[in-house]
């Protein structure tokens, strides 16, 4: 690309961010296309996938669980404050259970993992890019998509729902502990409320979302990592971009999926 065409148009300031955004979106779609093409071969690299599952899943577990515990605890404090004098405390368990499995569990887990895993994938692949390791891999006839990208995306897509299940449980336990120990709500009242309007589809909706979030985090990490250039600074920029893009996309896709699941599928 040179003086004319898209680049020339992009030099007019107002167009630049829009065109850059469109270019990025197009490149991400191409990467996703590559991933689907390489998936049958890439999925056979089981040791690589397991290695990534450990790094992404087990590695993120402590942080995720601490975040979940306090999320549940805060939800209990806030809900009880709102309920006081208006809503019976039996609904405390109901509101905590629902808000955790539908929204707080999947989204907060995704945001935490997005920061941790998205950054680490982008930094690792970015460093490999700027030290010519990716070029070396291609020169050896090994596809970086098959060898690096597919295992990461598969691992993250599997591990995010699993992390979310643990986060859901720990967050509800956090809410329970705060309710029982500090809010004068009996354990029985809390669990009765929890069961009151419990629907399995709420849990599934959260887990479906987390599958998408896992794919988003790993895809953004890989995309920005692989296209980084210009040494340490470039890797830093790629890492930041990967985390920012992951967080934004998680929230946007959360809205879209919520609309689809609750207005169309479960309506």
């Amino acid at each position, binding site marked *: 690309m040179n003086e004319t065409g898209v680049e020339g148009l992009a030099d007019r300031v107002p167009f630049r961010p829009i065109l850059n955004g469109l270019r990025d979106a197009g490149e991400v779609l191409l990467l996703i296309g590559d991933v689907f093409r390489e998936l049958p071969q890439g999925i056979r690299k089981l040791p690589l996938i397991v290695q990534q599952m450990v790094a992404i899943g087990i590695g993120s577990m402590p942080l995720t669980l601490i975040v979940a515990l306090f999320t549940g605890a805060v939800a209990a404090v806030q809900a009880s404050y709102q309920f006081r004098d208006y809503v019976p405390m039996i609904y405390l368990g109901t509101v905590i259970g629902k808000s955790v499995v539908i929204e707080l569990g999947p989204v907060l887990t995704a945001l935490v993992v997005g920061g941790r895993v998205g950054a680490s994938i982008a930094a*690792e692949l970015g460093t*490999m890019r700027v*030290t*010519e*390791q990716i*070029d*070396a*891999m*291609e*020169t*050896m*006839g*090994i*596809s970086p998509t098959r*060898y690096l990208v597919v295992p990461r995306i598969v691992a993250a897509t599997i591990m995010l729902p699993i992390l979310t299940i643990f986060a859901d449980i720990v967050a509800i336990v956090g809410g329970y502990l705060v309710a029982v120990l500090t809010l004068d709500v009996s354990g029985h009242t809390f669990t009765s409320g929890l069961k009151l309007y419990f629907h399995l589809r709420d849990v599934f909706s959260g887990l479906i979302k987390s599958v998408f979030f896992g794919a988003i985090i790993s895809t953004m990490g890989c995309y920005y990592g692989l296209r980084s250039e210009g040494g340490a600074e470039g890797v830093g920029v790629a890492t930041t971009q990967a985390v920012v893009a992951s967080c934004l996309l998680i929230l946007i896709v959360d809205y879209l999926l919520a609309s689809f699941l609750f207005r169309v599928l479960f309506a």
Partner: protein
Amino acid sequence: MLRGVSLTIGPGESVVIIGRSGTGKSVLLKHVVGLMQPDAGTVLVDGIDVPSLGHDELLTLRKQMGMLFQGGALFDSLTVGENVGLPLREHTDAEESQVEMVVHEKLQLVGLEGVEHMRPSNLSGGMKKRAALARALALNPKIMLYDEPTTGLDPITADLINRLIRRLQERLGITSIAVTHDMRSAYHIADRIAMLHEGRIHAMGAPAEIQATRDPAVRQFIEGSAEGPLLPT
């Protein structure tokens, strides 16, 4: 960056491309392996037009080529042995014991033994380059590309690498294309030297011809002088 480069390299020949930093020497190499695509023109390897190849065909063609990168480009998540064995594990059905044998043999060839279990980060610059050379040779390539093979190495290690490159070409008949601005290295490994200047092959000839040339730009470059037609950048 490259504007009208025309260069033909025969089988088993060793060609060194010299030129100042930023003249596109590495870019030229990357076009040969299809890591970069030319805006115009063709790149033929064994009669196959590289830019026109699809993804899978390109990967197949690359198995016949090895490339030594400037910094070695060893995968730092793998041990040296795993690095050297990776192309074999990916592209052949060789059993583990065979892979280990080849890894040992290739490391021996480059004068590195007993480093199989070390991480690349624990190797010196020269050792990294030699390990990377062993990896590039793992699949017995017909063509080897060297990007600044001696840059950043002490003179003794540099000489060792030069001898290795020469030996590979003479004994195994590997076609080699090296890019460098180390003239000592160029004289040592080249059958022909080509100087890249202003996007074109400015001069070409046997090392003795290049040494004897009267072309002011070539003279300035090989003598390493700040005065002459090539301006400091």
